[in-house]
């Protein structure tokens, strides 16, 4: 008999480094900065941690990376890895640990030093053809370009029209990024600049793609009934939805590649746990996986924020802008932070956490009481999607 995670776990502290091309910082620097900010925020000492989950694709193979950085002596630390959703998986595992009662205080940290390797990271496993050595691994931009081609085709838009819809999303995110000192990129852009930018993965251009960055973020969780001991304005976990695709998009010839089913399923689980029936009304702020602008566009529909296939209408109406009905990627998104894979989910949680505490400064969404974080890691058809819903304690 499964029980919902709702209201059983609370976040009492978070930390997040500046993201960017941090040539002068190594993995230990980033881990220490993110985690110590979280310790200070929670008003605990590192020794108070009972267990930790550590997410990284390229910056550590085992939990001892974390223990070495923080000098946590003989604590249980598990490395988790799910590409871009690694950070939320680390959080999820920490939540389950404290909810079960076997830990009181758990830490989750995600970190990547992508810039030590030039262009980031060598590509993904090609599930379901994982061991097939002749299906080529090329950057993820290609599968999102394929998503865009198919999505435009589905709506009967020519590529120019489609690109214009995407451009508005990037312009919106860049504007938000200007208001966030921790973002990598601080630059206002215009729709024309987006449309005239060089093509990377046709039809996606430079401003449709998030950058490659270094960064780390961390979160500390406790069982909800203990949270008051640490702070008044703790934030509650309302729902955790995780799923893994089984390759359906690539194995089944009737799967329409204009959508990503994994996103829909993970969101469904999270909403069920949180008791949310009308996301468009009940979610007040969200950070979603805008690795490429097209992904943010389809997510508006897949997360239930745009109804009836009308994401374009909402984009053009400014529904998801900072001053709109449901601000999305208020901190600038992957677009302005870049995407150190395992850190991103926790960076997004950091923004929602601050929003729900009323500490988001110029980015503050009024009366934000419930927020959503979404990531998806891997390749389309075999995504590991993760949706986390956070809520204020009242």
């Amino acid at each position, binding site marked *: 008999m499964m029980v919902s995670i709702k209201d059983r776990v609370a976040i009492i502290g978070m930390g997040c480094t500046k993201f960017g091309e941090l040539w002068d910082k190594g993995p230990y620097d980033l881990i220490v900065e993110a985690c110590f900010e979280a310790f200070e925020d929670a008003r605990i000492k590192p020794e108070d941690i009972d267990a930790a989950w550590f997410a990284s694709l390229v910056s550590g193979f085992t939990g001892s990376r974390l223990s070495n950085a923080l000098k946590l002596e003989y604590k249980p630390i598990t490395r988790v890895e799910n590409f871009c959703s690694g950070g939320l998986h680390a959080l999820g595992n920490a939540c389950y640990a404290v909810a079960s009662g076997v830990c009181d205080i758990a830490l989750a940290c995600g970190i990547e030093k992508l810039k030590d390797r030039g262009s980031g990271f060598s590509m993904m496993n*090609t599930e*379901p*053809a994982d*061991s*097939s*050595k*002749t*299906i*080529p*691994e*090329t*950057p993820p*931009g*290609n*599968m*999102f*370009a*394929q*998503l865009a*081609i*198919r999505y435009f*085709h589905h709506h009967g838009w020519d590529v120019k029209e489609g690109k214009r819809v995407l451009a508005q999303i990037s312009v919106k995110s860049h504007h938000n990024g200007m208001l966030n000192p921790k973002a990598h990129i601080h630059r206002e852009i215009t729709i024309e600049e987006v449309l005239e930018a*060089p*093509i*990377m*993965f*046709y039809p996606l251009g430079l401003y449709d793609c998030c950058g490659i960055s270094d960064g780390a973020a961390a979160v500390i969780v406790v069982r909800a009934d203990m949270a008051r001991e640490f702070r008044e304005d703790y934030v509650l976990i309302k729902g955790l939805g995780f799923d893994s695709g*089984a*390759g*359906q998009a*690539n*194995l*089944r*010839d009737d*799967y329409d*590649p204009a959508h990503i089913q994994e996103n829909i399923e993970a969101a469904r689980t999270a909403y069920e746990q949180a008791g949310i029936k009308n996301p468009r009304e009940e979610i007040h702020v969200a950070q979603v996986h805008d690795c490429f602008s097209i992904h943010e566009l389809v997510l508006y529909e897949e997360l239930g924020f745009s109804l009836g296939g009308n994401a374009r209408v909402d984009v053009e109406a400014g529904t998801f802008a900072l001053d709109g009905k449901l601000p999305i990627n208020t901190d600038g998104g992957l677009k302005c932070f870049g995407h150190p894979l395992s850190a991103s989910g926790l960076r997004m949680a950091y923004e929602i956490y601050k929003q729900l505490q009323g500490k988001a400064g110029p980015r503050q969404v009024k009366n934000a009481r419930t927020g959503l974080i979404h990531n998806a890691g891997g390749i389309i058809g075999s995504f590991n999607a993760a949706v986390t819903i956070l809520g204020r304690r009242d």
Partner: protein
Amino acid sequence: MVGILSFGAYIPLWRLNRRAIADGTVGEKAIAGFDEDSITMAVGAAVDCLRHTNREEVDGLFFATTTSPYKEKLGATTVATAVDLRRDILTADFSNSLRAGTTALRAAVDAVKSGSAKQVLVVAADCRTGEPGSNWELNCGDGAVAFLIGTSEIIAEIEACYSVCDEMMDVWRYEEDRYIRSSERRFVIDEGFLRVSKEAVSGLMKNFQLTVKDFTKAVIGLPDPKVQATLAKDLGFDVKTQLQDSLFSRVGDTGAAYSLMLLQSALEEAVEKDRLLIVSYGNGSDAIAVKAREKIGNRNNSRGIRGHLEPKKTIENYVVYLKRRGLLPINRPPRPLGEVGPPALWREVDQNIRLKGGRCQVCGTIQYPPQRVCTRCHSKDHLEKVRLSDKNGRLVTYSVDYITWTSEMPIITVVVNFEGGGRMSCLMADATPDELKVDMPIEMSFRKLDFREGINIYCWKCVQVR
């Protein structure tokens, strides 16, 4: 009676305008794509030859080339596997000679005649490189042909073969040579091409009681159209009406495949009872008499030479050719594609080389690659393998990657749905971005994905239907 059951060809889509090499030149030569070589072209020709024939009945494959990528690894097995033939077949490479194609043809006839095999596929392909600026560079073209040799339902009989061997350093390549070497031109033509070919033809006529008058046409695979005409004239053929067109202005001299390519051209025009004299040359000469039978009109839907002369894409930029041939030094190697672990490559031969998907015997879903657990009904181990390489399909979606540093950019990645079921993610070859459309018809083509650690990683890409 032993002869040709069917034939097929493969000529790359690409042509290099000879003016890109030198002013004052004429015509075009066929050049392989950056992802093509003798083996991939041989597969293309074999597939064309075997359209609508039962591949299970082929029990031999001879592969003739002077440009095998390997010095010690059978090309014939790669071709046989890619074409999805049985394992219990006779395979051999015929190499090191420009007449390897006709030698292989003769050996196939002998194998069938002796009962050593029932149906032998003879495939010849070449991809030779002449030194930049040389006549060889101007003249050589890339391409492949295939002939299926057997005994029943033949469309042309191989009536007689006569060979002479000749030890001479006329045209050759040493072990490490990239470029063709040749001796003084008049020496090669007079003492090589002409003298030795005449010896073989004369031997053929004498031993089989034939004269020039018994032949409709001469098919002369010598590496120079002028010399072809000289030989034809010297033998007594009318050069205007009885010499098979050399294909020089459209394809070029395709090495070990050349004589067989001209033979195929001739068969495409032949009528019943036409008798063709095939002459090939390379350290000796093979002279072969081929007679068209009643079924010569049966083309079995193969495209042959005719079907590969058009469509074509002409390149005007010499540098593209140099890059494709690997003749320009590069500092930054292309990003590796695919993986080279021999055990994994071996384990996946069925899905990667034979392009086998799986059909679930419980729910009928076709999936690629074959899965232990069915994607739809989740039955375990109920998949039967099904060949997808000969299926047509349509583009579901595509992307054009301008970022990934590959041998030739941009790289096009696509998703295709096969007719009859099944889906595959793969690369698309020979296409330019402006040609791409959702739903466009495609077919599969055997190509080289990458080369590392001495291993060619072959794969199937899709191409626009020709």
